[in-house]
């Protein structure tokens, strides 16, 4: 057992957990932030994606202890129902989700993708970059559309800021 302390969605949190506790478990069970999902055992589905120190990682493939002292953003820290992040908004506007289970991971992946590769992403890039996220409902068609739209909108936002 050990004490872990980290910043999650801007708030400092801590807990005493077994060393084998995964970051996904800490987020879901200790912090009750249940938007982060677990959909596989082999680090492939991406439902558990969070950002640690600004980078998208699979929280089911990281110990809570490894994130000790770090800054974590989960889906709950991205936007609120009243004020959606452009990626969240684009998922809604393009019907980029059905059952919603993979959606938090998809959104965290899309934000990371746009952060890394810049705005105005093309379809091939988006499809390739989604290698670590599996969706069984949408056939990806509308997820790709949503990310494309969001990447364009974020370009506008960036341009306006300049």
């Amino acid at each position, binding site marked *: 057992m050990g004490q872990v302390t980290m910043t999650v969605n801007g708030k400092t949190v801590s807990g005493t957990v*077994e060393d*084998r506790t995964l970051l996904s478990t800490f987020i*879901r069970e200790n912090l*009750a*932030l*249940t*938007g*982060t*999902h*677990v*959909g*596989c*055992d*082999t680090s*492939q*589905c991406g*439902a558990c994606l969070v950002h640690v120190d600004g980078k998208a990682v699979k929280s089911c493939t990281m110990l809570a202890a490894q994130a000790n002292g770090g800054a974590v953003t*989960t*889906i*709950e820290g*991205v*936007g*609120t*129902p009243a004020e*959606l992040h452009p990626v*969240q908004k684009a*998922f*809604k*506007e393009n*019907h980029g*989700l*059905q*059952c*919603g*289970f*993979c*959606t*938090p991971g998809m*959104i965290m992946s899309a934000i990371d993708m746009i952060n890394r590769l810049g705005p105005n992403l093309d*379809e091939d890039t*988006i*499809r*390739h970059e*989604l*290698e670590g*996220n*599996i*969706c*069984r*409902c*949408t*056939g*990806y*068609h*509308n*997820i*790709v*559309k949503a990310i494309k739209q969001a990447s364009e909108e974020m370009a506008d936002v960036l341009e306006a800021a300049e």
Partner: protein
Amino acid sequence: MTSEGIGARVLRKEDKRFITGNGNYTDDVKLPRMGYAAFVRSPHAHAKVRSIKTDAALAMPGVDAVLNGHQLVADGIGNIICGWMIHSKDGSPMNMGQWRALESETVRFVGQAVAVVVADTLQQAMDAAEAVEVDYEELPVIVDSRDALKEGAPQLHPEAPGNLIFDWEIGEEAATNAAFDSAKTIVSMDIDNNRLVPNPMEPRSAVASFDAAEEHYTLYTTSQNPHVARLVLSAFYNVAPEHKLRVIAPDVGGGFGSKIYIYPEEIACLWASKRVGRPVKWTSDRTEAFLTDAHGRDHHSTAEMALDENNRITGLRVNTLANLGAYMSLFSSSVPTYLYATLLSGQYNIPNIYANVKTVYTNTTPVDAYRGAGRPEATYVIERMMETAARQIGMDPADFRRLNFVTEFPHQTPVIMCYDAGDYDASLNAAMKAIDYAGFASRRAQSEANGKLRGIGMSCYIEACGIAPSQAVGSLGAGVGLWESAEVRVNPVGTIEVLTGSHSHGQGHETTFSQLIAERFGLPTDNVAIVHGDTDKVQFGMGTYGSRSGAVGMSAIVKALDKVEDKAKRIAAHLMEASEGDIEIENGELKVAGTDKKLSFTEIALAAYTAHNLPEGMEPGLKESAFYDPTNFTFPAGTHICEVEIDPDTGKVEVVNFVAADDFGTIINPMIVEGQVHGGLVQGIGQALLENAAYDEDGQLLSASYMDYTMPRADDVPSFKLETTVTECPGNPLGMKGCGEAGAIGSPPAVINAITDALGVEDFAMPASPSRVWQALQQKGMKEAAE
């Protein structure tokens, strides 16, 4: 209507909670004092259980109990049932082996549960489950259904001699044989349909609690049909009477059929929650999901088609062997029979059809309905045959199909189904236009110039949806009625709650069902709440599967709305001193036609509840319910065309173009329907190109994780081009047919027809993995070199 009525692309009401991480799935449920369950599972595909030693596990930290099948049986928990009785052609009932939620005598597939541990934490439960010592005596194993019927094959169940579950037939054998006797051309093929694992992204989960004072259970579970779950848990598994059991299926992360059934884990959690005196949670990990979620498909068929001198089909003869796995799951018997062979006529006028279906036990995970359930298997048989026949007689595949299309309705097939409406030419034309069929030759030449092989293939599918009416399915062996219910509850302030027995696990019911109210009363969808998934809230319901929520579930809502409208109009007429026939509803107001007299819907609702001034004899309140039982199945149909490009060096297939032209009848929300089609297409393309549940000869599932089971990813598939043609379904008030499964039904043969076209081979087994495609090219090369 408002801009949110029927046909409007209304954005989904449910999305906000999902995109912000506020969904409420079963594994998110946490109850006070909750313990965690871990199952002890068989590592063997077939073995006698000699003993189960639990002392070491019981002594481990945090462990409450280690429970096994002997205790389960002693407590009177019933065996798992199959809810659809099929009789063999000799009249004998199907041979059903015993299936217990926890097995204590003979395990028959890898992953079968033999004991359950309950502990304070999940890790403690898992540690203890590993410490349970089970002594197994291994038995010989059957994996392939073709081995099951062989003389001397290992026997799985004493109730099923020779491992045969049933030997069933449909159609007229003698007449069909006669058609073959006089045929000009006979086309015959072996056609396999690969075994799939459904893989909804949310793994199954159950949280069970028992209130000792009330002797009442609550079960949160990942179910597509919570009422059916309660019914079966009560009536057959003897967990508790229905009024002492509440089943809640909150947000459910996809189902695709695999969450219809009531699994051993749910039964065990309920039973254990009483035994240990605390709520018990179990959540499947993905490996458990691969091993224990009901699989789909797994057919081996031989098919023959007879053609006359005009290339018209005169007969179809099909022999199918279906692998149902180690046990008969809830609807497993209906899938390769009434959901399969009744669709073998496809979109075609085939005067004589005979099919024989044998189902067998093997030491594999039980097989049941998976998206499409029987209809993809039928479509694959008929559409592979159509393509092959066209090539054999040297006719364009589209022309050959067109020549044999059913063009007059209603059309009675020789295999029970009576098609009510359709226009198959229209969807074929739309698809050919959308994919620029005429321009294919030049695209192929372009690919060849780049060293690639290009092929095109089509599939004209038909399916039967709605799974109804009750009387008909009852006569065919169904153990339940297949209607749907709805209650429309107008609140005194004029907002509306619709309680439905359908269950949404991705289909967007909260939006589409609300659109019906927008259409009817001109109220905004924001004024409507759709209530589902809770047996304490909703009257009753049969749930969501078989693309039935539109055609059956929404029809029930329409029937209830009829009654609400009728009563509202009577109140309005009374209050405005007009005749009922003069009341019109528009934009949330009830108006007297031809006058400026009007009352808002809210005023009428309030009047109904204040009851100060109602028509003579009218009951207060504004709440109506309806049970809707359809008159027939519905028959969505369409054409899918696939264009592939193959890299001959690696065998990798790329789907470069895919068009689906579908006739779903009336469409409530095109955006949601398109989403259903996209998802179905990728599951179908997944079956054709990527997915396969592979067992080794010892019955170990080799593809038991995403490391080996190829889930379609974003870069495996293209964006799609969708077209819609409409013939309304005459059988229900909205004219709807259903859209949930079509994508998965129509696409696999389109993909394989395109691949065989590109490769220039006839025979090709799914999935078209790169290595198989490469192998086919090598064999073709060797064959050509030899010739």
